[in-house]
């Protein structure tokens, strides 16, 4: 290891007739694709299109039902991830796989399969320094991983794979945790490595601009089949979208009707400070105002205080100072306050935060109004549970919001993510709403569900609701908002009307450059 020659050359991969069935369900159906040595190939497709299944088959996580993998033109039987690593295949996952309490150097060394039982750190450090000299990535390997920013962690994940001598790198949505500028840097460096012939990259992505900027070729999967692809540049964005989605009528976003009601300020947050239960994260919101018939989007990289802000507004954690005012009076998120002032809160990951997974769809739909007589939440309080009214209301909401469920009595955990979110929206948006607070509403949902749910949010706005949208998806913020704020390090650092918004400027503020 101490006298490593120049980096070994990149390797090429080819799949032939790759098929993976789970029972009768074909997650992957006869996919043949070739990625040349030194290529930068993008794999596009909706959720459930088979992208992850394909790369898992290549990496040996899954045994394909049929089909083979060729490594540099020779048939390779890869039965487990170790075998893939031995052949120079590496994968970087969406979530981090580093040990937070160890330093970068320690993480790299323990990842080696051949790490000795007793480590001579001096020698290891010399080897690492030599290795890093040949890497385009600049990293401080002596800091614990927990102290690194997301972008640095992602770089370390990539460096780890290169250190393990991966010459074919699979990236699963590598930029979902990065700011636009971090993403640009990381992908640019990888692209340069492929240009030099040191590496081959296969990148799963949803983002067209990334694909167009960095990839050389692309393939599109739909429902487990390879439906198209080619060199980047030969397909327009519309072509790519059409291939991904197929011949399905996609609802376009409902038009905004009317302007913000300047005279009716529904939510006002003034000088609020708060600390999360772990005591590590602090927020300080000087001023945040949302008016009726207005969507205010709060953009930011995950973990910059958005969750704490949402928790303060939802009454989960108490502000240490300042005031939250809804419709002119202090608001702390109790049930009676949210009822009388028509406030609805839709948290992220609805199955985890807004539903009781083992209770039925019908019961989950009743959470907001079960303690009021009549079928709306406005009736008088009641101690007796009206099960018949509950069931009738559930049937109506399921039909109206097109919630796909086998039965109203099925546990809500049996529904797909999109249908859980439909059910939550059905529950929260049926009666008149004055203030809607919604966090990452479309995270992890497929294309059709996303457009439908965004339409519901715009419809609530058009009906006169003040909407506070907290989202880590910048495209979603740009698409939905009337006004955009950026949250960074617990503070609101930038504000712009959506009409004048510029993704680059927003990204810079998200990354902490103000």
């Amino acid at each position, binding site marked *: 290891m101490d006298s490593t020659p120049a980096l070994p050359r990149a390797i090429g991969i080819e799949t032939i007739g790759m098929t993976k069935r789970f029972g009768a369900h074909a997650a992957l159906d006869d996919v043949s694709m070739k990625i040349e040595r030194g290529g930068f190939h993008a794999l596009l497709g909706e959720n459930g299109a088979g992208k992850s299944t394909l790369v898992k088959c290549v990496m040996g996580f899954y045994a394909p039902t049929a089909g083979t993998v060729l490594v540099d033109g020779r048939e390779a039987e890869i039965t487990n991830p170790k075998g893939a690593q031995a052949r120079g295949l590496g994968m970087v996952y969406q979530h981090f796989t580093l040990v937070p309490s160890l330093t970068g150097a320690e993480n790299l060394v323990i990842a080696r399969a051949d790490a000795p039982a007793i480590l001579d750190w001096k020698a290891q450090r010399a080897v690492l320094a030599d290795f890093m000299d040949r890497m385009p990535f600049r990293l401080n390997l002596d800091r614990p991983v927990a102290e690194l920013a997301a972008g640095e962690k992602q770089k370390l994940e990539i460096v780890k794979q290169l250190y393990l001598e991966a010459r074919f790198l699979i990236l699963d949505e590598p930029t979902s945790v990065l700011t636009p500028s971090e993403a640009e840097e990381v992908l640019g460096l990888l692209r340069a490595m492929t240009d030099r012939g040191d590496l081959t990259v296969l990148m799963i992505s949803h983002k067209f601009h990334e694909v167009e900027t960095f990839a050389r070729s692309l393939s599109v999967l739909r429902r487990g089949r390879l439906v198209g692809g080619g060199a980047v540049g030969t397909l327009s964005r519309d072509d790519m979208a059409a291939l991904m989605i197929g011949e399905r009528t996609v609802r376009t976003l409902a038009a905004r009707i009317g302007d913000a009601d300047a005279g009716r300020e529904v939510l006002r947050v003034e000088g609020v400070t708060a600390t999360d239960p772990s005591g590590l994260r602090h927020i300080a919101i000087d001023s945040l105002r949302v008016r009726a018939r207005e969507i205010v989007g709060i953009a930011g990289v995950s973990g910059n205080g958005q969750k704490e802000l949402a928790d303060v507004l939802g009454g989960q954690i108490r502000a240490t100072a300042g005031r939250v005012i809804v419709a002119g009076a202090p608001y702390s998120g109790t049930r009676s306050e949210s009822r009388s002032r028509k406030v609805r809160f839709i948290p992220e990951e609805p199955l985890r935060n807004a539903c009781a997974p083992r209770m039925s769809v019908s*019961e989950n739909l009743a959470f907001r109004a*079960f303690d009021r007589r009549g079928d709306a939440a406005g009736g008088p309080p009641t101690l007796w549970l009206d099960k018949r009214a509950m069931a009738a209301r559930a049937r109506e909401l399921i039909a109206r919001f097109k919630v*796909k*469920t*086998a039965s109203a009595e099925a546990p809500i955990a049996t529904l797909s993510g999109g249908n859980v979110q439909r059910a939550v929206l059905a529950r929260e948006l049926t009666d008149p709403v004055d203030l809607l607070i919604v966090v990452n509403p479309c995270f992890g949902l*497929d294309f059709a569900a996303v457009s439908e749910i965004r339409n519901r949010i715009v419809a609530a706005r058009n009906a006169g609701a003040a909407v506070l949208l907290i989202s880590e998806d910048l495209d979603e913020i740009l698409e939905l908002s009337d006004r955009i704020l950026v949250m960074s390090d617990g503070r609101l650092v930038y504000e712009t009307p959506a009409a004048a918004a510029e993704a680059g400027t927003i990204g810079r503020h998200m990354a902490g450059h103000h």
Partner: protein
Amino acid sequence: MVAQAAPSELSAAPARPSTGLQVRAWLARRAEAVAIPVAAAVTGFVLFGVFLAAMGKSPVQLVEIVWRGGFGSAFALGNSLQRAAPLLFAALCVALPARLGLVVIGGEGAIVLGGLAAAAAAQPLAAMPVPLAIPLMALAAALVGAVWIGAVGWLQAYRGVNATISSLLLSYIAIAVANHLIEGPLRDPTSLNKPSTLPVGEAFMLGPMPGIGVHWGLGCGVIACLAAYLLMDRTTLGFAARIAGGNVRAAQIQGLPVGRLIVGFTALGGAFAALAGFFEVVAVQGTANGTLAAGYGYTGILVAFLARQNPIAIVPVAFLLGGIEASGGLIQRRMQLPDATVLVLEGLLFLVVLMSETLYGRFKLFNPHLWAAKSRATERETARGSTPAGPA
């Protein structure tokens, strides 16, 4: 390609399923809730049979003895029902907090303190008319139990202390406090080798219920179970508690008073457990003494889990367990087995019941709605797989 939902939506199914499927799903879920615990209990007995066989005893003889000792005669039945009465209350002390997601196992302490409070209250109330004094004694017991187990709920809700551990530890403290009082300040000087409080007095003793010869604790226990069922299943309070138990974050986001619900339901469970002690004093023992800590609180945990925390199901299960405990003496004498043998049986039952919790939703027979959705999704995938390939 057909315009359709994305393949990721495996649970996609018609928005309006047939009523036939709904009725079947309803019946099947009810059947599952009975079949799995019954199968678990049977498995527990079979394992105990293996244990007996390994000890060189006859499992068949055991069945015969349990039948004769617990259920075979009017006397045996009466004995079983008498033992079932405190189990009803003790099981409610587990089942009510369980709906909020709390595992409270300290009912024994509330039973002991409840009995002691009833006995202690008897002395100042001695001059009162009986119809007034007895409810006041019950109230004293219930209040003490409510405070004791309510504290467990408070610690969990507002201080994050695990309710299972705090209830167990508080139970030891309760028993120690009760022993101290029974052997010290509240001791009847005439109780020599069995320290007891002063007797509540003949006038304050409850007689048997007419017709069945078992004390009123049984009837009140059954009524308590029915009331608890109505509370949990038919009131908005019970529904709120189930939301909090199903997902505390969802309950908080709905603005439900989760802390107050937890304290309220644990306190109610503690009050019920304390009533078990009250009836032991005023219907069986006549005084509060060490026999109050006879293990009803712990058997009550088993009853509640076997009944899947359903207050109605507690009634038959408590009767069954009461019968097994009633036959304990006979097992000991006739099969020359130590008296811990019944504990071995209860322990085995408990383990099997806990393991059976993982089986819910696994059987096609019991969950047609789940499996129907899955098979429809796979059929669709299969149909799609056989159509010609899409544009390449």
